[in-house]
């Protein structure tokens, strides 16, 4: 049985399941409008209601520091845990009610009166009326790569000029945000989180505590998809409440909060231009991104990921990208599975498909002519692609897709679409390092690593990895992660970094443990370590042997650093379009990804399927619906924000991998977590474009999500 089997059997133990004596429950009072002056908060009635222990407002948190931004700007405006004089997005927390149960907390929250003076909201990226008095609405502007020469555009045989929209997505993990804080020394924080050491730093910093005074423990976590790495304002409010009351306090975010108040992903207006010669050789790509980053600069710099990826899989001499991040009166835009790379792949792969149509070239052939073939490859916007055989990946995809099989007379309009992508895994400078250790215990070994599973099978994969390294059975290896009291340092789980960075750190620690054990055995025996062999947990020299357990306590650490890796893939999709309704049906979906060397195919296969499902969500059904001012228009929650279910998965789903080892990684592994989110959306839209083009449809009117009405309208003359 796999070590993480209990999660799929409903035996996980999440933050909401923790039993802590005397624990109080929190409910937030939130802004009902996108933008308003906050003139007053009246808690008089609410405080008298049964079960209420405390109600905190901004006035009670003056000794708590600002909310740290993760990918903010150099001069980010202050972000307070609870709003002070203005609310800048619907769902912004204004007060927190602490009561003896969640029902009573919500009763009291409903009784808190807010005195709000509406201001106009603006949901779309662009300059408005100063969301912050001392800051421009343009939170950040950045340029990547040298500008494309005017002559390139003028002399090109063809220039494609397209605009696309990346709709806002709600990350929607099964478990939304959750935190339980126990006051004391250390302050103990149980939180469904991707980055426990970062949360420790964030809380300690805001509360004026030393890092050792805060212990963050991540219980089982029900998904994250990038959204659970920040120190959210709600967390600081809950910490302050627990501290002030001297009692444990828990907050479990519900789905309504998650859909209105929590961070969102994507959110970009894109303008892409591609210049090519008569043979379809791409001469230049220019990508301009205007990102709606929400009311706080939590992820203001994240669209830079899109700019960095603007070359995608192609060797293009001139590539230039600009990013403008705009404050909007919406919940903060932040990481969501793919975090910048799906956006880039969509813009480039849609435009490349338009280029193929313009030139009358087969889209696969056009791509093949432009693929990067020599590695390492430095892109003009600043990436160094480490390795790969992009053409082999595309060829395998086409083999499985059988594009010609779907041509000719068919009952309904049918289209074939492909998309190639290159992404970045492991992280960026600053987190391109990870801690691992292996300790000899009386009954086996314990690995410790700075990653933090939010549902991924780390226990299975990492225990096996350490066991293989040591030559011992996996069931004598225990794994500890997600606890800052147990693991001294770490950078968490995101950016598809866990196995690449954490796995390599554990492997290095296991190797170091073997070296240390040989040294110590050699010292006992008066030999040099070169005379001592490690044999499945036993040290041997000639006829002498010593089980490593006898050397306990024995402990080795390793800090692994490396450049990022660049996984890639080719996706192919066949769709059928209902000519009368516009509904899209997937007849086949092919995913061929290169994750480098794969340690556990069950794990990577699960990642591929999950990311495909979320890619299908973005392209077909998901999308946060806002009015022009930024208020959500999703009264029925997940009946309006439609997630794909198992029933939405294509029946003919062909998943394969190629495996070019990552040269900078001792295990050869690249990240595997985000592939389908990146490859699926452009492949599906390209397929729908292919289906409607012969009918006189206009692919430029296709936008995500491809609801039936969008496709139907694109088919109208």
């Amino acid at each position, binding site marked *: 049985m796999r070590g993480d089997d209990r999660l799929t059997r409903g035996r996980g133990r999440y933050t909401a399941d923790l039993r802590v004596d005397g624990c109080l429950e929190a409910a937030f009072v939130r802004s009902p409008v996108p933008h308003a002056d906050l003139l007053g908060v009246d808690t008089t009635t609410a405080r008298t209601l049964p079960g209420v222990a405390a109600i905190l407002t901004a006035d009670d948190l003056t000794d708590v520091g600002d909310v740290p931004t993760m990918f903010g700007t150099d001069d980010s405006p202050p972000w307070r845990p609870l709003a002070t004089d203005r609310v800048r997005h619907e769902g912004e927390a204004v007060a927190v009610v602490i009561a003896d149960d*969640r*029902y009573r907390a*919500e*009763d009291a929250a*409903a009784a808190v009166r807010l005195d709000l003076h509406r201001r106009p909201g603006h949901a779309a990226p662009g300059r408005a009326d100063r969301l912050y008095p001392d800051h421009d609405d343009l939170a950040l502007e950045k340029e990547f790569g040298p500008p494309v020469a005017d002559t390139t555009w003028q002399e090109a045989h063809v220039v494609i000029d397209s605009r696309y929209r990346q709709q806002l997505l709600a990350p929607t993990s099964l478990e939304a945000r959750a935190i339980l804080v126990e006051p004391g020394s250390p302050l103990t924080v149980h939180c469904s989180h991707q980055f426990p050491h970062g949360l420790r730093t964030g809380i300690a910093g805001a509360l004026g505590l030393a890092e050792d005074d805060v212990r963050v423990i991540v219980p089982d976590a029900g998904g994250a998809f990038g959204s659970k790495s920040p120190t959210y304002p709600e967390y600081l409010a809950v910490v302050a409440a627990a501290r002030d009351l001297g009692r444990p306090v828990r907050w479990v975010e*519900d789905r*309504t909060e998650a859909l209105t108040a929590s961070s969102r992903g994507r959110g970009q207006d894109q303008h892409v231009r591609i210049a090519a010669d008569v043979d379809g050789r791409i001469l230049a790509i220019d990508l301009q991104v205007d990102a709606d980053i929400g009311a706080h600069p939590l992820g203001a710099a994240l669209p830079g990921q899109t700019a960095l990826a603007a070359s995608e899989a192609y060797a293009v001499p001139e590539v230039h990208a600009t990013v403008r991040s705009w404050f909007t009166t919406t919940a903060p835009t932040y990481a969501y599975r793919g975090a910048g790379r799906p956006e880039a792949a969509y813009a480039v792969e849609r435009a490349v498909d338009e280029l193929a149509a313009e030139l009358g070239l087969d889209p696969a052939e056009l791509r093949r002519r432009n693929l990067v073939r020599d590695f390492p490859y430095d892109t003009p916007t600043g990436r160094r692609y480490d390795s790969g055989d992009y053409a082999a990946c595309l060829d395998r995809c086409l083999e499985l897709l059988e594009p010609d099989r779907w041509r000719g007379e068919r009952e309904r309009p049918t289209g074939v679409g492909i998309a190639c992508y290159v992404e970045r895994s492991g992280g960026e400078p600053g987190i391109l390092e990870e801690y691992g250790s292996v300790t000899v215990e009386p009954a086996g070994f314990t690995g410790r690593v700075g990653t933090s599973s939010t549902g991924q099978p780390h226990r299975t994969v990492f225990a096996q990895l350490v066991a293989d390294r040591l030559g011992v059975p996996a069931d004598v290896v225990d794994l500890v992660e997600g606890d800052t009291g147990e693991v001294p340092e770490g950078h968490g789980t995101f950016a598809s970094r866990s196995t690449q960075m954490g796995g390599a750190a554990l492997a290095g620690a296991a190797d170091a443990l073997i070296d240390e054990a040989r040294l110590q055995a050699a010292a006992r025996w008066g030999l040099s370590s070169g005379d001592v062999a490690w044999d499945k947990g036993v040290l041997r020299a000639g006829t002498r042997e010593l089980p490593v357990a006898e050397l306990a306590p024995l402990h080795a650490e390793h800090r692994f650093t490396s450049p990022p890796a660049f996984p890639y893939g080719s996706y192919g999709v066949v769709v059928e379009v209902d000519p*009368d*309704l516009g*509904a899209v049906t997937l007849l086949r979906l092919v995913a061929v990804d290169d994750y480098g060397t794969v340690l556990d195919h069950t794990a990577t296969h699960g990642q591929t399927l999950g990311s495909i499902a979320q890619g299908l969500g973005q392209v077909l*059904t998901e999308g946060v*619906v806002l009015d022009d001012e930024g208020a959500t*228009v999703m*009264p*029925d*929650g997940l*009946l*309006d924000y*439609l*997630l*794909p*279910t198992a*029933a*939405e998965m294509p029946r003919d789903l062909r998943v394969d991998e190629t495996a070019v080892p990552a040269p900078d990684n001792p295990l050869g592994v690249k990240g595997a977590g985000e592939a389908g989110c990146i490859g699926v959306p452009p492949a599906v839209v390209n397929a729908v474009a292919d289906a409607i083009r012969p009918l006189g449809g206009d692919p430029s009117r296709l936008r995500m*999500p491809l*609801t*039936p*009405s969008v496709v*139907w*309208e694109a088919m109208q003359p």
Partner: protein
Amino acid sequence: MKPAPFEYATPTTLDEAVALLGTPGARVIAGGQSLLQDLRWRRTSASLLVDIARIEELRGVHDDGDRVRIGARVRHVDLERGAVGGPLGRLLAATARWIAHPPVRSRGTMVGSLCVAHPSSEWCGLAAGLDATVELVSVRRRREVTVADFLRDSFTPAAGPDELATALLVPVLPEGTRVGVVESRRTHASYAHVAAVAALLPDGGSRLGLAGAAPTGVRAHAAEAALARGDDPGAAAAQLDADPREHPHAPIPYTRHVAGVLVRRALQEAS
């Protein structure tokens, strides 16, 4: 979110239930598949929930030859599994299969759906199309209201706060009637966008109902008339019977168009 506090009663007789409904702020709960959501979101409230799950008189289906009486406790899944016989039963079963997904169908009730009056409710479209009647009981009286009158507007059924909808009375479809139902929706688990229900009667007449095409379920009179004349019932449904509201994922012209397409497809399925 959590609902605001409420009292909860489980009467075992109809008299007891309607007496409880005299309490200001009392609400009836049957399967709870809509009401519990609304309470949880605090967009409705109740001082007292009167649970009708134990009232014997509200059980089951009774066919008197002219009308089938479907009691307020009859769940979607009961109809899906063939609680009603004949062509009407086939139409009810085919329609039930479109409702939400199995967990909802195993708790939600048909009469409850009528009382919620969601614009996309398949049952509202069917009940309107078949000229069904709602039976309402209060301490004051027992009365019958046609579905056309009962479904005044979205979410606002024509029932007093003290009235309990005890049954839906659906005219029996004669032997030889052919039936069809089709629906458009965005995922397998989502609300209907539009649903069309068709019955082709042996005398050449037809009954057509639409859900999602107007603020409430409606009978597609214009499409029926067009069909009788030999004209395109789809065009009539789109232009005359449909009266859609704007939806973020479905502009009005598109919904009209879909109503027409689905009426044609429902008729095709029936023929």
